[in-house]
């Protein structure tokens, strides 16, 4: 049924927004992390969304795949912003001048991103509910 592909598209968006939420939580948790396994301070991560590839015309024609679209997380990239330097002479990761390199993460920006992710998630849930309501309205024709 075609309404189901609308639900699949919104479902892919729900998964993508959940990944975004995980990345934001990771950024908030590591806002003060000065040491990582890779070396240096933690770096802010950001998700890159991409439209899901539309299947080839031949596949569409033969009905192997449906043209549905959707979104997917292409990559989680690290921000190239230089770390901020905070004067903490007693810190074990402090350099010769007593400065510690901390990730360039602004908790306020992370909170705003979190609100945006939550709202986007809600919007997609509403889209799924609308698709469902449409299907059920269509079933009422026969009632």
């Amino acid at each position, binding site marked *: 049924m075609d*309404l*189901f592909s609308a*639900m699949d598209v919104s479902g892919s968006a729900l*998964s993508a927004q959940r990944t975004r939420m995980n990345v934001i939580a990771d950024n908030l948790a590591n806002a003060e992390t000065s040491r990582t396994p890779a070396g240096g301070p933690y770096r802010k991560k950001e998700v890159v969304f991409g439209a899901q590839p539309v299947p080839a015309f031949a596949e569409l024609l033969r009905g192997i795949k449906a043209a549905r679209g959707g979104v997917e997380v292409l990559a989680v990239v690290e921000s190239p912003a230089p770390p901020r330097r905070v004067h903490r002479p007693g810190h074990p990761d402090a350099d010769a001048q007593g400065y510690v390199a901390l990730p360039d993460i602004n908790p306020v920006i992370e909170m705003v991103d979190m609100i945006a992710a939550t709202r986007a998630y809600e919007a997609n*849930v509403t889209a799924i509910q609308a698709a469902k309501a449409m299907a059920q309205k269509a079933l009422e024709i026969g009632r």
Partner: protein
Amino acid sequence: MAEITIGPIEGPAPLPRTTGPARPGKSFGETLSESIAQVNELQKAAETAAQDLAVGKSKDIAQTLIAIEKASISFQLMMQVRNRMLEAYQEVMRMQV
């Protein structure tokens, strides 16, 4: 002198049958049982998704609920079709003879 062979006159080509199925396709029964099989597949998918979520194999609540909703809507559609068919049958059975 070249010989010209004249073939026998053939009878008229058989006309396409007007009765029976207009084109070779699936019968209503086949279509119906295919649809019911699809509904069954969606029900199975929903059950698997719910099971995976309960066991912890999957952590995607949204996809699980979408699978359950799909199963529910397709089942409702199947029930509507079944009700229509049964009504038609009963209508025929009530016919005065």
